């Protein structure tokens, strides 16, 4: 209503379109800036909350000690080790499978074929499954049916199932974005398909593959529901991949929701988790940069 009135009043005089445009532009810019501010403000607020509460508790002792008194005292060394193992198992299992599926979908099947559509649809469905369902499936399949018990292996493989759709999806997007000229030129030069894939297409898709990998690691590292029933609750230093090991996210959840007086250490653990994920991310990015650079020189 008001808008319509305003527009009417404004359009009566000839000099007003200029003002109207100026108003529109300022408003649009302002809104966009506000959105950016809200998004980054949210991030800063979240991070500063964790840093402010977590930093006083954080020390070398906290990182290298075992938890005591249900995690209220002591550190989180075994939990960091378990988390790293779980992530490693998850990525080691999911990355090759995800890349292979993406290659199959983009290079060896036509997008319109029934098989390709079936695979893509099932990946889409898998991406929408809530993590607690993965947890229950992982518990029933890996822990009970395959008799792996509550173990790092069960937890990692459950997470692998969970991040697989992300990896496949981003890898497919990346490979599809590689120009067809590459494939044609490779064929014209008599390169084998695997050589073209290895030397042209995968390097071309590398940024997308990396983005998918980082998203996957991020999702896996933040996962609680899928892990509490698979890798379990034991906060001892894991001796093998068949030992139960508590993940950082499970530890944070337990300290904040189940253990009275565990908040301070929950914040410190959250800070460690954030730092761990950031380190993995920057490491992966640096590695890819390095690798791409070498590749370009050789090309």
């Amino acid at each position, binding site marked *: 209503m008001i808008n319509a009135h305003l527009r009417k009043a404004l359009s009566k005089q000839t000099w007003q379109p200029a003002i109207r445009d100026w108003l529109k532009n300022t408003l649009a810019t302002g809104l966009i800036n506000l959105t950016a501010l809200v998004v980054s403000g949210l991030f800063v607020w979240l991070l500063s909350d964790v840093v402010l509460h977590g930093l006083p508790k954080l020390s070398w002792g906290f990182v290298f000690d075992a938890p005591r008194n249900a995690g209220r005292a002591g550190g989180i060394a075994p939990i960091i080790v378990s988390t790293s193992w779980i992530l490693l198992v998850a990525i080691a299992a999911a990355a090759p499978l995800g890349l292979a599926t993406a290659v199959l979908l983009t290079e060896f099947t036509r997008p319109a074929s029934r098989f390709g559509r079936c695979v893509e649809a099932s990946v889409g469905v898998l991406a929408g499954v809530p993590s607690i369902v993965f947890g229950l499936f992982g518990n029933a399949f890996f822990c009970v049916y395959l008799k792996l018990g*509550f173990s790092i292996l069960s937890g990692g493989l459950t997470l692998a199932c969970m991040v697989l759709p992300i990896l496949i999806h981003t890898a497919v997007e990346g490979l599809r974005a590689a120009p067809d000229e590459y494939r044609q030129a490779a064929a014209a030069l008599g390169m084998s398909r695997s050589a073209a894939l290895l*030397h042209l297409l995968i390097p071309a898709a590398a940024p997308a593959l990396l983005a998918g990998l980082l998203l996957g690691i991020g999702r896996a590292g933040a996962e609680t529901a899928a892990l509490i029933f698979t890798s379990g609750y*034991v906060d001892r230093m894991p001796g093998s991949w*068949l030992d139960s090991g508590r993940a950082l996210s499970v530890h944070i959840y*337990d300290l904040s929701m189940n253990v*009275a007086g*565990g908040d301070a250490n929950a914040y410190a653990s959250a800070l460690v988790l954030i730092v761990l994920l950031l380190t993995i991310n920057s490491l992966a990015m640096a590695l890819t940069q390095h690798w791409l650079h070498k590749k370009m020189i050789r090309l």
Partner: protein
Amino acid sequence: MKKIGLIAILILIGFITWSVRQQPNNLQATSAANESTSKLVLTGSSTVAPLAAEIGKRFEALHPEVRIDVQTGGSSRGVNDARSGLADIGMASRALKADETDLQAQTIALDGIGIILHSSNPVATLDKQQIIDIYTGKIVNWQAVGGRDAPITVVNKAEGRSTLELFLQFFGLKNTDVKPQVVIGDNQQGIKTVSGNPDAIGYVSIGSAEYEAEHGVAIKLLPLDGIAASVENVRNQSFPLSRPLNLVTKTAPTGLIKTFIDFAHSEQVDDLIAAQYFVAVPR
């Protein structure tokens, strides 16, 4: 480049064969666990789990050849896993029900359940009928029980939680009668929900509520039937709403399972029980 790929594939194959090779050993370990050679698996109540894990650590220190693995999932799961043999010992934060008498339970500690309000709430006491009316939605405003004019936020526990079962049983309610605004899971979540909402009412474990209230969290415990909700009154068993924390086994415990349960029931763990804000059983 080819070399790196080859190495990666070799590592992957090595990983897979290693895990497959390990599997038979693991099978043996799980079947042998019943004869209690080296590893005890406990599953169940999230309330008991931190205590059981601490008792387990002390037990491991005394018996270096033994490993105690504690997993959570709720009391019902503890009972089911103990019955199915998936766990050596189940943890339940309630007494066994009538249809669970085929199992054996050993109480290792007591826990009281208290009604909590936000500390700014002027209401100092509620009688049984008032609490029932609030939880069934007959009273929806604090004014009706002498408080300020504000709608009541009823915080209830999720299905399958033993705190819920105990609460319902004590007040003679069915879960379908309860009209909650918030449904929560673990204990600390209840404390956080009520401390963050001046008009909320909830019920949580007394020990941790007492600890949090002493440490400046904005909650207060209400007396029940005129008896103050305190650890002391749970210990002398005068507080009416309390529950046992049980270790459940399928058959009368023998061997290592018996050693562990006896240890968990001895005065050697009294300090651990107090550290988790529970109450040691009178022996």
